[in-house]
């Protein structure tokens, strides 16, 4: 329109005008914003998430992998502790009578677990910590949802990591903590 205004020779002196700025140009930054990246002189869609999926590798092998921080030694212990804390935090947030009763049940379960079989617990921790396949990636304790139900009879309230190891086959559990993910994978782990 402004070109038409110029074309018809309309007096534009003293009028508010804005020059088309550099930011108005469609250029590399536009494509980058769209999620395309230049790889070997070619523009390809390469968003971080897609990149990970396409390459099929785990986050832990990725040099840029700043989303998930791996832990080396006290894996199961840390996971267990985090589970307990998540559970503990969540129980404090509940207010309604039903939720309150549920939280009480959950609290008693976790107390049983923590205090009930100390010897077995410590043994399990040692096994888990030294086992090569035990892999725990943990970032933060920001709780935004219930953990996935445990395959055992205890249901959602079961936060006993070692308890599920009695079941056959590999055990995989994911506890989603909002944007941060707590991934617990215990592959081909047998409790002798």
């Amino acid at each position, binding site marked *: *329109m402004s070109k038409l*205004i110029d074309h018809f*020779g309309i007096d534009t002196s003293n009028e508010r005008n804005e*020059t088309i700025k550099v930011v108005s140009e*469609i250029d590399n930054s536009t494509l980058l914003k769209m999620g395309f990246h230049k790889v070997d002189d070619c*523009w*390809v869609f390469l968003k971080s998430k897609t990149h990970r999926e396409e390459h099929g590798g785990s986050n832990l092998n990725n040099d840029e992998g700043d989303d998930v921080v791996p832990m080396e030694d006290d894996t199961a212990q840390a996971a267990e502790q985090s589970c307990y804390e998540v559970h503990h935090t969540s129980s404090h947030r509940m207010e309604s009578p039903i939720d309150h009763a549920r939280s009480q049940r959950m609290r008693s379960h976790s107390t049983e677990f923590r205090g009930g079989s100390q010897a077995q617990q410590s043994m399990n921790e040692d096994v888990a910590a030294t086992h090569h396949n035990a892999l725990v990636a943990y970032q933060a304790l920001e709780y935004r949802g219930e953990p996935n139900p445990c395959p055992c009879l205890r249901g959602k309230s079961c936060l006993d990591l070692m308890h599920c190891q009695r079941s056959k086959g590999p055990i995989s559990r994911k506890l989603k903590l909002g944007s941060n993910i707590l991934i617990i994978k215990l592959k081909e782990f047998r409790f002798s």
Partner: protein
Amino acid sequence: MASSSRKKKKNQEKHYNSQGVLENWFAEDEEGITAYIHEMSRKKVNIPKVLEFSWLETEKLAETRSALKHYKLKQFLEMIGNVYPDLVNVFYTNLTLDGKNLVSYVKGIKMKVTNDVWNSVAGIKYYGLKVGKGNTNGIQEFNKIQYYRNCVRNPSLGINRFHAGNLNLTSRLIAYIIAWQLIPRGFNNAVLHEEGLILLYCIMNLIKVNWVYIIMEHMLK
């Protein structure tokens, strides 16, 4: 709330009247001034985007470049210069259709935008298919869902909306140019509208479309 908004409008009118600017823009046309105050004065004019064809060449985006070059849109897409937001609003306030041409008045000067004007200013001609929303004469084979599926990077994805973010590079870039330059709408550019999809289809398949007609229709909306 209502009384406060009325007060605001009165103040606004007083403000404009006291400046004497509107009289200059509308050549003392009272109807135009009233329409401007109540309809157009608050509308924001988008600063248009600019596409350099040399950039397409540098970045080896040959498919996009050849598709756009086929329509001789180079002059239109590479337009640079000053933008006069107030005068553009005045232009749109007075805009009417006279036969096949757009007519408007700015500062009392009649602007009759004929095909020759379009050709000289934007380098586009009144020639080709007159397509638009609900009008696919000449491209009966066009199916928006099917075509969108053809353009997305991952065809197995479910389609809830015609989201531009799922398109492959060439389609994405052309959709962006359609949404920001050819028929800019100033909002919700992330989603392809039917009109945008039709134009994308035509551009990608090198079907001649009447850009003058399409732009005129868009301006009159």
